[in-house]
Each structure stands twice: as structure tokens, then as C-alpha cells.
């Protein structure tokens, strides 16, 4: 029997061998979208979820009502952090390719999201990152050596060798533990924000997921709870167009922007040019102020593009055109900020080249230090007895016995 199926199967605009086509992306001109008051009723600002907030135009000139209050010094620092993140990613990606670490995930092309948002939030705001938010860790002063040691699962690993690479955390930096299960951090961020409100504090929380993870139940649970309790939280969807090989249409992005996911619950949505650091910063400040004033949650969709593979375990040339990123109409966030700074006379190509060289040295020095704490092949090694710690607050008797068993077994082997 031959089926004549009427089922709709979403298709990306281009697969390998085809010309990239981003005509599906609806874009607004830089400076064209109005900035409402932070206490505007959600029902009156639904346009923000459908249009695209942009500050930098194609020539790198800042335009319109969303131009943020950032000094040239702050912009240069943002640029440095984006470049540092990119250099860190590049080095660690290559270290995985050389077999020095088991796995890695770059944030290539998405650096403005973490850096722009991290700068827009206060140090006591709690962040619930996804696995592609290493920029937040770098911005909040997690040392490069610590990040590398986590990826190495060595004696200085903050996770004590218990997590795959990139599942960092930083208690002091108010960065939650990254989970390998998708979108689980969304309700945590909402709960954290609820507790902040219960305690009468001004701190807000923020969480990130990708476009693909919006399909998870936790995404919807979080939106419902955030709306019901008007939790002071910023919920971010980083729409980088691809979830491994699955384009964003499979998460329901074909007909409606992800920013509009909360409109039915009365949660304002903002669709922003995720490759425009100024715009990302501006909308985050707006949402943070709204939350701090008791205005509740905001859902921000960052329209961006995943410049690299999903992780070191997939080859994007098998599922998308090789030159798709080059055709992405919102470009590269690093190049766009540089263009803006150069145009404004705050920066030059020479300085840029010199800074990259300097950051490379910083990364190499950090790597050299990180491997002194152990690598996959060379010591020092983690103490095996620590494997049994932290399952519970106190080590129960049966784990004391299992630990002893393992130590004896290893003693006999060696």
C-alpha cells in the first residue's frame, strides 16, 4: 500500500549543496522599532515580539531609540570579552580535535548574547546558563584556567571530574551549574526569581535556552509559572537557527517568532538582533528594569546563527550549506562591533590584530597552567575516593563501604 501523506514536514530553506536562503527571516531596519516605557502593559507592546530590535545598521552606525548608554570604554571591554570568548572556544575546540579533551561546544557567532546580556545585568543577579553561554562565565571573572580544568576533568576541576566538558558553574559569580538536559534550568530560574520576590529582594534571574529546547515541557512550565507569579526573570531564547541538524522550524519557528511564545500568557516578548551587542544590551536593560520594578518576566529571542558545529561530535557540512553563516543577514557580532568602534574612531584594524594576538597568548598561558593540574593522560590525578562525595551532604555508610571496596580493588590492580 502506498500512502499519500498529508502530514506537514518542515524543511529548512537550504541543505548542503544548495544556496543559503534567509528570506524566511523577517528583519526590521536598525533604529526602526520603538522603545516603549518599561512599565507599558504587555498587551500594548506585542509588536516587540514580531519586529526585530536593531541598533547597529549595516554600516555599523548606531540608530534609533534603543541606543544604549554605553561608554566607548565599556564597548571596548565588551569587544575584548567577545574576542576572549572566541579565542577560548577556538583553542578548546582544537584541543578536543587533538584528543586533549573529550568534548567541546563553541559559541562561535553567538558571543554578543552572553557578553551583551552579562554586562546589562547586576553582579547579584543569578544566571542560569545553557551550554553555549561560556561568555557569561568569562564575563563574570571565572578564570580561564578554571574553565579549562573543568574541560580537562583534572585535579582543579570545579566539578571534581563528574561532568562532561562545558558543564561549568561558579557559585561566587552567581552562575548556576550547566546541565546536559535541555531547558531544565528554565524553571530553576523562575523559582529562584520567585524566592527573590518572596524575600523582598531586588535581584532578578535570567536563563537561556536554544530555539530547539523551546519544545521541552520545562520551557512551558517555566513560562506559566513566571507569568502566574510575575517572577522577576528574563527568559532568553537564543535562536541560532539550528539544533544539531534540525532547523528551527522543527521547534515550531516556522510561523511565529519564539519571542511570541509568551504572549498568550501575557509575557512581553522582544525579538532582538542577537548579533548586535548594543541591541542585546539595550533590551536586557529594559527587561531587567521592568522586572526590578515588579513588571514580571520578559521573554527575549536573540536572532543569531550558530557559526560552528553543535559540538565536536557533529559535522555541519552534512546537514546545512557550508557557506550559510557567510550569507546570514545579521553577520558576525564581533565584526559588527569592531566596525562600529572603528567608524566612531575608538578602534583600529591594527589594534584589533594586536589584541587578538595578545588574547591568544593569554589563552596559551592559561592552557599551560591548566594542564599542570592534570590531563587525560598525565597526572596529577583526581583522588578516586572523591568519586563518592557529594551524592548526599554526608557520606552514608554504604558509600563508605563501596569506596573502600574500590580502593582495595585498585590497590590490588596496581
Amino acid at each position, binding site marked *: 500500500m502506498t500512502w499519500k501523506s498529508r502530514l506537514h514536514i518542515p524543511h529548512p530553506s537550504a541543505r548542503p549543496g544548495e544556496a543559503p536562503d534567509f528570506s524566511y527571516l523577517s528583519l526590521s531596519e536598525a533604529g526602526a522599532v520603538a522603545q516603549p516605557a518599561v512599565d507599558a502593559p504587555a498587551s500594548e507592546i506585542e509588536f516587540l515580539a514580531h519586529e526585530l530590535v536593531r541598533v547597529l545598521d549595516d554600516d555599523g552606525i548606531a540608530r534609533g531609540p534603543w541606543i544604549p548608554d554605553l561608554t566607548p570604554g565599556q564597548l571596548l571591554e565588551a569587544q575584548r570579552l567577545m574576542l576572549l570568548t572566541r579565542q577560548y572556544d577556538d583553542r578548546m575546540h582544537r584541543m578536543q580535535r587533538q584528543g586533549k579533551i573529550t568534548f567541546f561546544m563553541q559559541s562561535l557567532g553567538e558571543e554578543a548574547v552572553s557578553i551583551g546580556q552579562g554586562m546589562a545585568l547586576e553582579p547579584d543577579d543569578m544566571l542560569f546558563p545553557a551550554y553555549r553561554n561560556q561568555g557569561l562565565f568569562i564575563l563574570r571573572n571565572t578564570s580561564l584556567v578554571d574553565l579549562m580544568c573543568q574541560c580537562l576533568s583534572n585535579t582543579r576541576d*570545579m566539578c*571534581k571530574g563528574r561532568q562532561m566538558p562545558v558543564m561549568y558553574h561558579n557559585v561566587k559569580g552567581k552562575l548556576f551549574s550547566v546541565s546536559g538536559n535541555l531547558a531544565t534550568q528554565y*524553571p*530553576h530560574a*523562575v523559582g529562584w526569581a520567585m524566592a527573590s520576590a518572596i524575600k523582598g529582594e531586588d535581584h532578578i534571574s535570567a536563563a537561556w535556552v536554544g530555539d530547539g529546547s523551546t519544545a521541552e515541557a520545562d520551557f512551558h512550565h*517555566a513560562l506559566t509559572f513566571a507569568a502566574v507569579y510575575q517572577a522577576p526573570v528574563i527568559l532568553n531564547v537564543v535562536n541560532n537557527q539550528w539544533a544539531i541538524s534540525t532547523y528551527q522550524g522543527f521547534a515550531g519557528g516556522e510561523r511565529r517568532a519564539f519571542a511570541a511564545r509568551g504572549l498568550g500568557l501575557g509575557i512581553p516578548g522582544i525579538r532582538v538582533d542577537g548579533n548586535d551587542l548594543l541591541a542585546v544590551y539595550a533590551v536586557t536593560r529594559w527587561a531587567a528594569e521592568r522586572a526590578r520594578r515588579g513588571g514580571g518576566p520578559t521573554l527575549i529571542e536573540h536572532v543569531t546563527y550558530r557559526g560552528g558545529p553543535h559540538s565536536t561530535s557533529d559535522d555541519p557540512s552534512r546537514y546545512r550549506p557550508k557557506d550559510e553563516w557567510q550569507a546570514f543577514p545579521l553577520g558576525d557580532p564581533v565584526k559588527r562591533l569592531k566596525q562600529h568602534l572603528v567608524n566612531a574612531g575608538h578602534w583600529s584594524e591594527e589594534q584589533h590584530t594586536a589584541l587578538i594576538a595578545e588574547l591568544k597568548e593569554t589563552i596559551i598561558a592559561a592552557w599551560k597552567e591548566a594542564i599542570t593540574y592534570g590531563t587525560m593522560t598525565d597526572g596529577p590525578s583526581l583522588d578516586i575516593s572523591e568519586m563518592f562525595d*557529594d551524592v548526599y*551532604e554526608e557520606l*552514608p555508610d554504604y558509600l563508605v563501604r563501596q569506596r573502600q571496596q574500590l580502593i582495595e580493588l585498585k590497590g590490588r590492580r596496581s
Partner: protein
Amino acid sequence: MSQMNMIQAINSALDVLMEKDPTVIILGQDVGYFGGVFRCTDGLQKKYGEHRVIDAPIAEGGIIGSAIGIGVNGLRPVAEIQFADYIYPGLDQIISELARLRYRSGGEYFSPVTIRAPCGGGIRGGQTHSQSPEALFTHLCGIKTVMPSTPYDAKGLLISAIESNDPVVFFEPKRIYNGPFDGDPNKPSIPWSKHPAGEVPKGYYSIPLGKANLVQEGTELSIITYGTMVHVAQAAVNQAGISADIIDVRSLVPLDVDTLRASVEKTGRCLIAHEASKFSGFGAELAATVQEECFWHLQAPIVRVAGWETPYPHAFEWDYFPGQDRILAGIREIMESV
């Protein structure tokens, strides 16, 4: 001391701790204004306010997920899942997040969530209001699993659960909320006021997690059980006229292996009873533990009495429920084997 049923004892535990510790908050469906469908949180919202006893949307994954975040931010949430049968939408949050947060963060993050959930059958609840899913949780590393069988234990154990910095899943056998139940639905129900464990101190006390309770002492047989089945086992032992230890495990994880071992070494015979289905039920772990610890003391094979390997049927509730006759058959099997 005062007379309390298990509902009142749970309510009292919550009340005592909310009074003592302002970080304790309650979150769940119908827990606030209404006081819970089983009345366990009755009056608490009125007393502590709607910011500490919070009615939640019908989304168990959201209740547990947000409770984790609330716990990370320094509060001590007690989440109520209306029926244990409804806990499954929250399983990923329990398994992947709550149970492993401390471990995965190298001991730097934790969330002291207690999840309360009424469990078990005997209330004409059919297959969606009768389940005993404790074995799904005892298999996890990083969660403690508790099930009381009396008002006195319910209060003391719940206080320990909430005070624990480890997450605890606290199952409440709802058939014995109002009185002990010997497994015979045709007999008039007995209230907790007729039972010594219905005497409950009004104030603060705690029962440590990880300690079993030797409910009655004997010489010929050890019955290891928990929840509603503790009372069914007591009735069956009386009927059989044998001398048996009855051990109420109370805390499934961590398990009080010492008490189990001492008893079975003494009696040489072991029967394990629970309401949940037998295959891969918690009784399998108990049987394996007894075998590992007491093999040379055993005079007969261990017998398990449990629910059948079917969903909990509405019309055949009392045929599914492992009542006195099934325990008696188990006792005969053990006592008659050489």
C-alpha cells in the same frame, strides 16, 4: 501529647517548622486557600500567608523545577504532589536535576527540596490514584525516600526530611491517613485515636532518616515492610499465631541494614511485604540485601508478598491489594519449608 491522625500530624510537622524557620515554604496544587485535597496544609496559608503557602499551577514538572530554584535561592521548599501517581511529569527534574545537583557541582550547589506525595491504594482510586512508585526513587542516587506508617512517625520523619539539606521524596500512604488499616475493607474503620501511635507531641521532635522501627518483636520470622502493609502484617501475624519481628523500614533510602540483619540473623526466616508490584519492586532490593547479609542464617527461602504485576485495577482493588490472606499464605510457605 495530643491525638492526631496522619493528616493532622503532617499538618503539625509543617506548622512547627514554618513557625521555627521562616525559610520553609509550601508549594503545590490546592495547598493554599483550600488546604490541600487531603487537608494536610489546612489552615497554614491563613496562618503564614499566601507568600509561604503557595497555590501552584497544575504542572508537576513546574512545581518541582521551580522548587529547585527556590531552594537554590536559600528557601526550604516543601512541594506537594497531589497524588504520587501525578509525579511523573516532574521525574526529569527529580532525576536529572534535584538528585544530582550537589554531585555534579562538586558539592557547591544543592537544593533542600522535600516532595510530599500521597501514595498507595485502598481508596477506590483505580490505576491513576493508587500507585506506590517508591522503587522508581530508591533507584536514584542523591534522593532519600521515606514512607511512614503512623502519625507519630509521619510528623517526626517529615520534620527530619524538611530539615535535611538533601532532597527527600516523602510518600504518605493515604489509606492510613485517618486510621490504621488491617487490609480488610469490610470491617469498620478504626481511627488513629485508638492506636498508640496516634499520640503525637504538639511541638517539635524528629525521627532520624535511616532508622527502621521494630514494631513488634518475635522469634520465628522477620517481616520487613513499610507503609500501609505494616498494619496488614501485624493483623496477619496475630491471625497466624506465630512469634514474628515486624520491621517498619520507614526510610527506604538510606536503609537501616543493621536492624534488618539483626532480626533475620535471630529468626532465620524473612518475609517481605509491600503494596507495589513485585517485579523490580523495593522488595527485590530488600530480599537481595537480606540474602547478602544473612545467607548463612536463613532457614528458608525469602518470600515476597506484593501487588500483582498489573496496573492497580479499579473493580478488583481488593484482589490486587496484598491483604492478610496473601501474607498468611506467605507465612505458611516460609514456616512449612524445611
